[in-house]
């Protein structure tokens, strides 16, 4: 893109950022040049750490003048390579824009800068006697800005929806450098196109999120967590249906015995001795004094059908956390095997048939690889992680995975599903976008990108090439 020398480009940026706000050392460039994925070698020009909206606008203006590509960067926990800078881009980290600006108890909303860590916002809401429900294992590192840019889902989607459902106002600096103030915290606003929703989930390709207003809700009442042993894949959604019909579910998660093995290796306690190939974690809200009795009745009913072999239920908050750790620690427990991840979704009604189809496909295509299954199955969302055998080099491993992708994604297309449920497209799923979106749709996506970012300076190469 830019033809100017690196030195000249950096000198230009120094005109409006302080020395501490522009990092060029190799360690910072390595650290800020990638997200949780490690498939690309980071090679950013430098890392900018703006602290004000005006500085962000200056950066965008400068990037347009110089045709310098910008990579917005949050907590870098993304799983699609959307925050990777491997082509001499300037990383724009929002880490220093991390203030909570306003809380309104009547609107029940909080306004914050994009670099606020998800967990910080959750705690802040609790301190106000309220609740921010978007939650997942990366909570301690991911940023609100990153969550909005990926429309993050997580473990409570079944009850509370996606990040999108909680954003009532958004300030963005577009690729042209204007500051847009979108929806202004309103609940109702039928005055034309809702541009806010275009920016949510746009993976930093349309604009830079510089401020967000998020809705909060009442904290949930007490809950219990169950981990249940499932002998057959077909039982998973039958169990889901049985519990959903009689209880208020706040989470319904799935994982395989292979996944469990890895978290147990890290020192967690086995939930029960009975070995089953699959497990589900069910969180229920106590809506009445009879909730646990109802859960027991459903458990019995499912056991009689042969869908369940065993199960435990938390007796304290500590046990609830211990049971959740069995599910939440999976990603970290397999990280050392450099897994190749797919994050896919189909409609809930199609999950059973779809699971059967991909179970057969994966068994056929990866007979020699360890494949770990887990996911937010109550949302129709499954994560598939293929572990790299130590003997195989990274390039050979990725080549194999990409081959299988073509078949996996064809199956997804057949079932009307998505090649990315919640992790985004980024760099890694970019070649496969056409499996979930048709040509006409992709043409519109490109046209929208051209409207907000005519020079293509924002996160180029992400979502589509």
């Amino acid at each position, binding site marked *: 893109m830019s033809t100017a020398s690196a030195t000249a480009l950096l000198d230009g940026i120094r005109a409006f950022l302080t020395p501490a706000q522009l990092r060029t050392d190799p360690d910072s460039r390595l650290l800020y040049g990638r997200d949780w994925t490690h498939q690309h070698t980071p090679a950013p020009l430098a890392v900018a750490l703006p602290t004000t909206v005006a500085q962000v606008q200056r950066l965008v203006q400068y990037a347009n003048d110089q045709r310098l590509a910008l990579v917005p960067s949050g907590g870098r926990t993304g799983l699609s390579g959307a925050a990777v800078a491997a082509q001499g881009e300037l990383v724009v980290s929002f880490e220093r824009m991390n203030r909570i600006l306003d809380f309104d108890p009547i609107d029940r909303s909080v306004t914050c800068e994009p670099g606020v860590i998800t967990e910080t916002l959750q705690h802040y809401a609790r301190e106000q006697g309220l609740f921010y429900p978007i939650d997942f294992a990366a909570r301690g590192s991911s940023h609100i800005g990153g969550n909005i840019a990926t429309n993050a889902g997580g473990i409570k989607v079944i009850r509370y929806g996606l990040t999108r459902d909680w954003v009532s106002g958004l300030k963005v600096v577009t690729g042209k450098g204007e500051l847009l103030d979108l929806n202004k915290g309103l609940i109702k606003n039928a005055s034309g196109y809702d541009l806010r929703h275009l920016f949510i989930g746009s993976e930093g390709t349309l604009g830079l999120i510089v401020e967000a207003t998020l809705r909060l809700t009442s904290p949930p009442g007490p809950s219990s967590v169950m*981990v*249940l042993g499932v002998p057959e894949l077909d039982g998973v959604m039958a169990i889901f249906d049985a519990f959903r019909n009689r209880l208020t579910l706040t989470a319904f998660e799935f994982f395989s015995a292979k996944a469990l093995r890895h978290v147990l290796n890290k020192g967690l*306690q086995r939930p029960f001795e009975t070995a089953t190939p699959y497990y589900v974690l069910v969180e229920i809200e106590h809506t009445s004094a009879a909730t646990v009795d109802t859960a027991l009745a459903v458990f019995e009913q499912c056991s009689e059908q042969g869908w369940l072999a065993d199960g435990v239920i938390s007796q304290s908050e500590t046990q609830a956390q211990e049971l959740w750790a069995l599910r939440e620690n999976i990603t970290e427990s397999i990280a050392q095997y450099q897994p190749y991840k797919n994050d896919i979704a189909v409609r809930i009604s199609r999950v059973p048939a779809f699971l059967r189809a991909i179970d057969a496909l994966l068994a056929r295509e990866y007979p020699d690889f360890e494949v770990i299954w887990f996911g937010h199955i109550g949302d129709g969302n499954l994560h598939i992680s293929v572990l790299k055998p130590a003997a195989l080099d990274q390039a050979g491993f990725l080549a194999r995975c990409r081959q299988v992708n073509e078949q996996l994604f064809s199956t997804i297309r057949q079932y009307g599903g998505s090649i990315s449920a919640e992790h985004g497209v980024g760099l890694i799923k970019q070649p496969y976008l056409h499996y979930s979106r048709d040509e006409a749709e992709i043409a519109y996506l490109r046209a929208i990108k051209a409207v907000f970012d005519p020079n293509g300076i924002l996160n180029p190469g992400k979502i589509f090439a």
Partner: protein
Amino acid sequence: MKLLVAVKRVVDYNVNVRSKSDGTGPDIANAKMSMNPFDEVAIEEAVRLKEAGKATEIVAVSMGLKACEETIRTAMAMGADRGILVETDAQLQPLAVAKVLKALVAKEQPQAVLLGKQAIDDDCNQTGQMLAALLGWAQGTFLSKLEVGDGKAIVIREVDGGLETDEIKLPAVLTVDLRLNEPRFVKLPNIMKAKKKPLEVIKPADLGVDVDPRLAYSNFRDPPKRQAGIKVKTVAELVEKLKNEAKVI
């Protein structure tokens, strides 16, 4: 060998408790309640002794409101054989609890009483010791290991600066620390079985025990809020502040 295990219903460990604005006590209305974590360890140890063929019967005991039945049911789902609730709405202090337990020992004739070393709500750490004194029994406190033999037990205790191994005579009062074991999760089928196990409800008066509080609490206050940190400009300033303000060097 028959075991009596005391289980207390307390505010869940993860709940952040504040005091009531009038200072009359902690504000725990609607707070999530669970079994005292130390008592969970005590029940787990009792169940392991039974599974190892060393104990024959486990009786779980709780005292307080009707809701303590839930805690007893949890103990029975973990493996206790039956339960006794000594129901009262009196504010129970360690001496009263020890007296009730003493009366229950007379009634049940166990060879050992297992308890948590303390309860996480009042943090008293007194009941086990008082009970041993009232009974004139041996006591093994703060246990991180327990081996039951013939008429005696070898216990390892967590003491300041290390571990102490003692041999004590049975019957004995044993209070347990968290490192003793990792309590099991409760299986759903066992909750259903626990519903059918006998749970006897009696009153302190049935045991002839006066549980009236002997201590009056005069005031409850939140601990002072932590001050925000400050940034120092130089090492010299840091040293100066550590010396003169924090007075730690």
